[in-house]
Structures are given as C-alpha cells and as structure tokens.
C-alpha cells in the first residue's frame, strides 16, 4: 500500500463512496455488489504502481550481459534477487536477444501458450535453460507465452 497524498485522497474517496452506497440502498445484494465492485477498484489501484502502463519491454543491460528486446510484456515486472535478474509477464510475446559479456546462464519458465523458440528451434516442456560462454548469444522468440519468466544469472538450471 502506498501512502502518498494522492493515494490517501483515493482511499478516502473509496471509503466515503462505500459508506454512501451502503446507506443508500435497501437491498442487501446491491450493497454487497457495491462493496465487491469497490474492492475490485481498490485492488486495481493497489496492483498498479500509478504510472502509465506500457506493455513493451525494452531490454536491460548490466556488466555481465545485455538483453535487447522488442517484446510485448503484459502485466510486466522486472527485478533482481540474489544476483539473478528476471523479467516476468502474464503474457510475453516477441523477440529478445541475450548477449553475454561474461559467462552467464539463463532460464525461461512458462506455463503455456504458443511456444518458446531458442535459436529458431521450438522448445518443448515448460522450462529451458542454457549456459552461455563469454560473447555467447542466444536468440529468443516467445510466441504468446503465458506466465513466462526469463532469469539471467549464475548457476541457473531447470529441475
């Protein structure tokens, strides 16, 4: 939960609307529908970070590797945890090229969808990992992969 001034105004408005709509109808179901819809709106406020949504993932660069991308990423998030960098999306669709500067490993996990191609070959299963040497290049094409996650870091593998 964020507590900036605008967010506080938003929460207060929602609370006032909830109060008014609870008082305003004699029908219990309608009151519950009010609460449900306001809850959904609150959930929408909380799950977005307030910035305009852009569904394109434009790539990432650090000392060990460079990822260039023209992929669409719906419900996207990126981050770094325990030395492993990741990008994940509800839908990941498009082309990415991973260039290693030092030796790194990468791993793609996905739940389903059109398919995942690495260096032009369709990969089966729900996980694919590969070790890249220095200056190694991996050519990734994600074809509408659902709940997909690409991780780059040392010592990654499926299983």
């Amino acid at each position: 939960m964020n507590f900036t001034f605008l967010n506080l105004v938003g929460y207060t408005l929602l609370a006032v609307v909830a109060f008014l709509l609870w008082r305003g109808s004699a029908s219990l179901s309608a009151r519950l529908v009010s609460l449900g819809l306001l809850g959904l709106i609150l959930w929408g406020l909380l799950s977005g970070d307030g910035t305009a949504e852009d569904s394109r993932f434009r790539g990432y660069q650090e000392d060990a590797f460079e990822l260039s991308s023209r992929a669409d990423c719906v419900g996207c998030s990126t981050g770094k945890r325990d030395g492993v960098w990741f990008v994940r999306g509800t839908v990941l669709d498009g082309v990415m090229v991973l260039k290693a500067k030092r030796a790194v490993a990468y791993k793609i996990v996905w739940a389903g969808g059109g398919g995942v191609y690495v260096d032009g070959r369709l990969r089966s299963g729900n996980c694919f990992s590969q070790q890249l040497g220095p200056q190694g290049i991996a050519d990734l094409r994600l074809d509408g992969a659902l709940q997909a996650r690409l991780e780059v870091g040392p010592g990654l593998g499926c299983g």
Partner: protein
Amino acid sequence: MSALPTLLWLEFRKSQSFVAVLAGILLLTAVGLARLGANPLNQPEEEAIALFSVAATVGSTLLVVALFLSARQDGTGLLPSVPGGLVHQLARFVYWGVLGTLFALVLTGLLWAYFDRVVPGMPGLSSTMTLLFYGLGLFWLPGVAYLLLAFSYVQSYQLSRLGWLAGLVAFLGFFSLAGALVQVGSKVAYAALPPLTLSLQSLNNRLDDIRLPLEPLLLSLLLAVGLLLLAGRVWDEVEA
C-alpha cells in the same frame, strides 16, 4: 417459468426497430461484399476485412445501446402474475445473448463465404464458427450478464438518488473485473483441459495452429451465471 416466452416476446417488442437496423447492417454488408472490386490502393481482401470490422463495431455498439434503452422501460404490467426476478433477468439474458449471437453468426458467415470464394485453402466453416462461439462465450455472455446486473444495481439506488454514483462505480468496476478475469484466466489457461486446436495448415503450412484454452471460457461462463443469479436477487429485492 411459464412467463419466460411472454417476457421474451416483450423484449422483442421493445427492440423491434433495433432488430430491423441490425438486419439492415447485415444486408448492407452482404451487398458490399458482393460488389467489392479491385482498386489501385487496396486489395479487395483488405476492403472485406475493413467492411467486416465497421459492421461489427457499429452492430455491437447498437446492441449495447438497445440493451440500455430496453432495460429502462418495463412492459411487465401486461402479465397476469408477477414472475420472479431471476425469470426476468433470464429472459433478458437469453434474448440479448441470442440476438448478439445471431448477428455475429450471420456477419461471420458472410465474411467466411467471401473468403472461401477468393482465398484458396480457406479453413472450413466449422473452425470459423468454433472461433466465433469461443469469442462470444468469452466476451458477449458475461458482458450481457454484467450489464443486466449493473442496471438492477443502479435501480436499487433510485430512492436515495445515488444512482449516478452507483453507475460510476459499476462503470469503473467493469474494467477492474475484466482485468481480474484476464489475470486469473491466464493463470489457469492450459492447466487442466486440452485446448481446442484449429488448424491453419491448409492456408499456409508455415502458420502455427491456433490453440484456444478452455479454462478461461469456463471461467467466463461461470462468471456469467454468477452475475445473472446476483442480478435476479437484486431485482427481487428492488421490487419488494
């Protein structure tokens, strides 16, 4: 349940002029598709797609507007006994669901007939219709159920004059609900059931098959039923 045919008839009486307009749109589209010619700027196939999307946009907008207008008037004073709220909502749901389905069915059939004539190896009518019914079940049926619920919900705020606020909440909540449905649907997609597979091999053997997951469809239909039951309860409580 004996009131259901009468209620369906009343819905039809209320929306007769819209049905005529929709039929007119279909007729115009048919004439347009029959008279498509080559022109230096466009391929006739592209013009057919453009015609189809204009007809589909105008038609679906009109359907929603007609649903708005007919939900605002009530002709049930003609009935000898007052049927329950669920029967009312069910009649509206069936009527608008079927009307939208018929419109989409004829429109898609027209487009398919055109492409079957000009594109060699066009996939058969059955796979086109599978795609159409999948889309209708995914979007149109829960959409109609949500609209019906929203109407009764806003009506229940008539006495306190907060209908505008309830309408605003219903409008904003629609997008949140759709977002939540997409999130959950993509999580469960392909999880348990085998997907519906439509082959495009006859069109071009480099195209992948279309794999439609069944779980989001089931989720949408369940949501439609849930919203309809809720709409029936709200109707009962408003009338009481």
